């Protein structure tokens, strides 16, 4: 069997119905096991690109997920393998209870009662909110909602986790815990965000999108330490923040956890 990357995008173009061009020729390949941050100014086409990964939008060009072309006959399998987590957990969590939300994907996959229940408790356990099955999403804290939103795709046992603005609106502690949670998950990840330190913490590779194209692509350190490159594309590191080589600073998951 020849080599099949997790994501393979070639010459992808997309324009919204009103004519706005959102993607103007995107080429991107992501290997299995990678953790990639996609950054860029508002309106660069990041979220639009995400929606192409599981066929919610389809533009001109080629998109393959683990070798499968994103087209109608593969959608079922692709949507199982790609866990897409939206920015606002209130969009992701639409069922009356957390259980129903986390069970939604597995049930759509056609699993039986017992398997669904097992998948739900495993997913909730994995994101650290075990036992909240019966709660209403409305009553969860924002950090818990974010976790529950990830559980809704983990329960489908995805091979690729795609997160839109994972760190937005989280307080520093929740953000830190969330970061540690992500790093504990050994699966291919794509993060779309403005939060450059979060990307630096969580991703080995950074892709800058600008005006519907990939403007830069490289390892986190070399991209994020290139101030001129960042500012060309409307990005900047937080004041006082300067990335140091990965090996000198432990990531949150490697720091000692205090109880």
């Amino acid at each position, binding site marked *: 069997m020849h080599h099949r990357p997790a994501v393979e995008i070639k010459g992808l173009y997309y324009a919204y119905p009103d004519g706005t061009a959102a993607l103007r020729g995107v080429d991107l390949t992501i290997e299995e096991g990678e953790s990639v941050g996609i950054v860029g100014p508002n309106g660069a086409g990041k979220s639009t690109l995400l929606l192409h990964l599981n066929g919610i939008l389809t533009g001109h060009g080629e998109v393959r997920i683990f070798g499968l072309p994103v087209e109608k006959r593969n959608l079922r399998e692709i949507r199982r393998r790609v866990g897409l987590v939206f920015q606002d957990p209130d*969009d*992701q969590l639409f*069922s*009356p209870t957390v259980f129903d939300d986390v069970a*939604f994907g597995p049930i759509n996959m056609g699993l039986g009662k017992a398997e*669904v229940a097992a998948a739900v408790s495993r997913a909730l356990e994995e994101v650290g909110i075990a036992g909240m099955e019966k709660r209403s999403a409305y009553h969860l804290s924002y950090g818990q909602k974010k976790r529950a939103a990830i559980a809704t795709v983990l329960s489908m046992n995805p091979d690729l986790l795609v997160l839109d603005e994972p760190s937005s609106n989280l307080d520093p502690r929740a953000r830190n815990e969330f970061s540690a949670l992500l790093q504990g998950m050994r699966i291919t990840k794509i993060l779309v965000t403005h939060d450059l330190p979060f990307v630096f913490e969580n991703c080995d590779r950074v892709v800058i999108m600008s005006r519907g194209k990939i403007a830069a692509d490289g390892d986190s350190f070399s991209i994020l330490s290139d101030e001129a490159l960042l500012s060309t594309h409307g990005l900047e590191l937080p004041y006082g923040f300067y990335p140091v080589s990965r090996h000198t600073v432990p990531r949150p998951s490697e720091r000692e956890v205090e109880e």
Partner: protein
Amino acid sequence: MKHAFLDEYSGLQSPMHRLDPRAKLVGLVALVVICVSTPPDLYAAFAAYLGLELILVLISRLPWKHVLGRMLIVLPFILVVAVFLPFFNKGGGSYNLGPFTVSAHGLLVLWNVAIKSTVSVLAVILLSSTTPFPELLKGLEKLRVPRLLTTIMSFMYRYIFVLSDELQRMRRARDSRGWSGKWLWQAKVIGHMIAALFLRSYERGERVYAAMLARGYDGGLRTIYLYDFGAVELGFVALVTLFPLAARLLAVG
């Protein structure tokens, strides 16, 4: 407003709470139908209905304060209409109460409305206070209520407070910028807010739909039902239908 408003106390533990929602739905609806179709002068039958419900309240360990409070919310609406009937309705003889004349027929109508609404409202309280709303929806679904309806109700339950929070944030933003609501030209602002709320809800709808598609949604909303309709459920349905029926027949006898 608290989210628990709809189904407060539905998380308690009691034999009533453990029942399959289908049994409660079928049994209590049957009780209401039997009650509503009873002629108003079968007083013993109504005593039996009410007695049965009070026993069910006892079994479900609901606080009396909660039950009475809920009844007080609903009853005035019905009673306000009925309370004037004895004065205007003619026929069936009359009684003199100081300056007022009260017709016997009117009194019977008042009693009829009052007792039937009491029994019905109590049945609704029993159902909603012992069954979490999501479980109730699943019960309805299992009883073949069209999925479109239960889906709409489920989204309503999920998003009504998200929406009201959104509205509240908009209000605060508006008032923080000096909106007083005193002037006619400010009325336009309310129109804009309604439009904004509509647009936001519409867009949220689109995002929710995308989130559903992303998890393999194909048009059918499937859920898992955790209850079994067993002997206890059968017993409950038999009790709340057969007992009132018997009481009614005996009262006629």
